[in-house]
């Protein structure tokens, strides 16, 4: 209820802003909504959303999978940590734009270059978060699994993974928001479709309505993923915690 009221307040503020600044600078919520419906009717909206979502999905999965593996290795083996740390610092501080431009220069304006550029941007933060998780793993439980001769995969699934779950959730959360923002830049710079491409066109035409239309549509999609995918998984993973009455 409170969330809805807060949302209503946002829409009201938007309306007032639009009224004072004028439709040109900030179109009213109703104007944007009409455009959303029009774009949805023509199929354009879904086409671009799908293109962007596909890139987000691939880049996110790639970065999370590789990031988790590297993070685990670095958190558990001191030598790998020492060897990998300088690389990590370099990657962490490399501006997203540099990675994207280099990827396009080296790989051409291709889909693979685009997705890889996004994944490389997300990778180091995933590594850092998972590494923290791997460092915090409980040695006593490892010993238990070892003494009882639990098979490797089983021990990973039931002993290690649940301990990493909060770290993976944190990495996924921040990752999702980071990845979709970077995907938009990648699309703006070198892809012929997607939300970023559309916003680029709208920018050249100074079409604020169009910019807001696509931004809004994508925010709704991300919110839906957060509510219907990320949160249920998190609830399931933390159901063992005793609820404080």
């Amino acid at each position: 209820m409170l969330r809805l009221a807060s949302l209503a307040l946002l829409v009201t503020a938007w309306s007032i802003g639009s009224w004072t600044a004028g439709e040109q600078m900030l179109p009213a919520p109703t104007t944007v909504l009409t455009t959303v419906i029009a774009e949805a009717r023509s199929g354009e909206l879904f086409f671009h959303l799908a293109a962007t979502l596909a890139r987000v999905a691939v880049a996110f999965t790639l970065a999370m999978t590789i990031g988790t593996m590297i993070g685990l290795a670095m958190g558990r083996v001191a030598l790998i940590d020492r060897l990998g740390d300088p690389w990590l610092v370099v990657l962490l501080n490399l501006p997203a734009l540099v990675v994207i431009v280099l990827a396009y220069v080296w790989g051409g304006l291709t889909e693979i270059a685009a997705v890889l550029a996004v994944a490389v941007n997300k990778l180091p933060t995933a590594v850092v978060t998972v590494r923290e998780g791997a460092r915090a793993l409980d040695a006593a439980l490892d010993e238990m699994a070892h003494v009882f001769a639990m098979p490797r995969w089983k021990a990973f699934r039931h002993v290690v993974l649940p301990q990493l779950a909060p770290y993976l959730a944190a990495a996924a959360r921040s990752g999702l928001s980071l990845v979709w923002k970077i995907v938009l830049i990648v699309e703006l710079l070198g892809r012929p479709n997607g939300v970023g491409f559309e916003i680029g066109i709208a920018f050249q035409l100074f079409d604020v309505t169009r910019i807001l239309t696509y931004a809004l549509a994508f925010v709704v999609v991300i919110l839906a993923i957060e509510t219907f995918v990320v949160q249920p998984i998190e609830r399931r993973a933390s159901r063992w915690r005793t609820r404080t009455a």
Partner: protein
Amino acid sequence: MNDAHRAGGQGLLEVLIARKTYRIASGQSLEVLRGIALTLARGEVGVLVGPSGCGKTTMLRIIAGSDTDYDGTVVRPPPGKLAMVFQEPRLLPWRTVDDNVRLVAPRADEAMLAMLFDTLELDQHRSHYPGELSLGLARRVALARAFAVEPELLLLDEPFVSLDDALAARLRDELAMLVDRSAMTTLLVTHDVDEAVCLADRLFLLSPRPAHIVAEVPIPLPRRSRTATDMATIKAEIARQLAAANAGPAAP
């Protein structure tokens, strides 16, 4: 170090630890164990009794195979035939009681588990998470988990420490019952002489650090037929042995 899986010796468990040292933070090395020799026949219950901090847990970790940095040899059953009850319950907080037990004992059948949960009075708690249990209950789950494996060798590291006396005594009786029923070889570590006298077929008395075995006391009397006077006699014998060891030309 040298680990082996029963190379034809006479015992199910044969432990020979010449030396175990730790490197402490200041860079010096600290000798924890020296000249430990211990053999348990199949089905025997051995109890290691020693003062706190003498290196009992270290010894148990070496025997369990989780510490391989020592001079000596250990002959133990192969992996999967070993179970351990740690000083803390060490349950997986994110798995139910039932899953905690089944995860380490995938081959345990339902009838056996039901009997085990019943004996340890856990049948009401099978779907609970460890966070919802008292320490006493969690310790019972740790016992159930170890027995569910149906190990050849069961190791217990002060399994009843920090429980109140009445509860500790009850759990001790339950343990004695389970050990008698299954006839598995058991090695228990404790600083509590009463507990040791209740459970042991063979007592090993340990010195302070660096720990070595000062005396080995076999108790031929079956566990169930031990009376209070029997136990008092055994305790007197232990006291005598310890006094003799301390008076003798032991290391200063």
